[in-house]
């Protein structure tokens, strides 16, 4: 009898424990996405993708490139470096990319072209069709390199935070933040040389990556700010692969000077 009573108590405790430990039935029924994984169990980002695209409701620019939504921006720092920079009439200042200068990160990854990622245990290589921009991101725990001049794409290092890949990038050259100047031809949005970006990549479904960029630019903004985008897998693009992109090949009208007939 005592044993029987004990069993009933044990069953009750087990039931209470189960109710407090497990999520509600509705959540249990939500399937965990079967995300791609490498042989060592890490999320597998190898593949071909569309460039990062907007989430519903976010501001869209007037080119095929994605731009940041102004409602995400943190307040400007009083007396800080200017974020908006007007065109001056000097074509080399006004649109350096028209002279085949690089887009620079993060504008580079937001450009409207295909991307291909190659992942090993020690590196993620992100190749963007636009300008064949290549970012080589160490995943082996090394610190940022020191003593280098500021760069268009900065100096990235990556690490895993569970199933999220976190890419921390520093040491940028002052450059256009995004392609806002396609939408408003009167001005650029510039980041400073103090820019520090943090990207977070996480599979949100078997075919889509959540991609969040944090912009930490203390010379311009009072606080870091972030925007989430979505990177869609495009396995159907893998047959053709990335196309060649040599900007200098036939850049006929740099600065609007086409030089007459050809």
């Amino acid at each position: 009898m005592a044993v029987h009573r004990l069993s009933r108590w044990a069953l009750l405790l087990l039931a209470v424990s189960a109710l407090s430990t497990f999520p509600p039935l509705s959540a249990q029924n939500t399937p965990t996405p079967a995300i791609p994984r490498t042989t060592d169990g890490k999320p597998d980002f190898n593949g071909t993708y569309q460039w990062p695209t907007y989430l519903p409701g976010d501001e869209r620019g007037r080119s095929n490139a994605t731009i940041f939504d102004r409602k995400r921006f943190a307040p400007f720092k009083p007396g800080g470096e200017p974020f908006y920079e007007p065109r001056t009439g000097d074509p080399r200042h006004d649109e350096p990319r028209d002279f085949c200068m690089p887009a620079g990160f993060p504008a580079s990854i937001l450009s409207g072209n295909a991307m291909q990622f190659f992942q090993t245990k020690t590196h993620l290589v992100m190749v963007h069709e636009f300008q064949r921009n290549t970012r080589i991101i160490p995943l082996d725990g090394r610190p940022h390199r020191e003593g280098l001049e500021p760069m268009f794409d900065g100096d990235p290092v990556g690490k895993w935070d569970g199933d999220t890949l976190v890419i921390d990038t520093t040491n940028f050259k002052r450059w256009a933040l995004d392609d806002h100047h396609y939408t408003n031809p009167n001005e650029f949005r510039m980041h400073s040389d103090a820019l520090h970006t943090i990207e977070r990549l996480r599979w949100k479904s078997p075919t889509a990556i959540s991609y969040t960029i944090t912009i930490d630019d203390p010379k311009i903004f009072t606080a870091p700010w972030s925007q989430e985008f979505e990177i869609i897998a495009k396995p159907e693009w893998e047959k053709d692969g990335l196309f060649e992109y040599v900007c200098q090949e036939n850049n006929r009208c740099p600065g609007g000077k086409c030089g007459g007939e050809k």
Partner: protein
Amino acid sequence: MKRVVFTILVILALSGGAGRLLAHHSFAAEFDDKQPLKLTGTLTKVEWTNPHIWYYIDVKNPDGSITTWGLSGGAPGQLMRRGVKKDQLVVGSVVNVEGFRAKDGSHNGFGSKVTYADGRNVFTATPLDRQSTPAPAK
């Protein structure tokens, strides 16, 4: 069958944002949206090259002379992913081109749409890229 495939390709090219192709530079860097172009001429050459395709048409002037116009479009990779291929621009064909003139006033421009005499269109880029909208508020 060929016609059906062509139609599908054009529909594909027009869908998914209908262009917005310029990626290498903004429209304002090279072209003048206050100088729209409508040209009819014979397609003489196609350069399927980066950073933008260029194609050339010979336009007959009222005095009988010929002016060659160079017209820029999207990047080859972007166009190909939209189903627009180089062989859709057939050298020797008479085409109508809509676009905008280069800022330097030369016989060059941004050709967004090529239309053949039978009405077929090849969307080589789009005027949506031009930036004639007022500056948005900050």
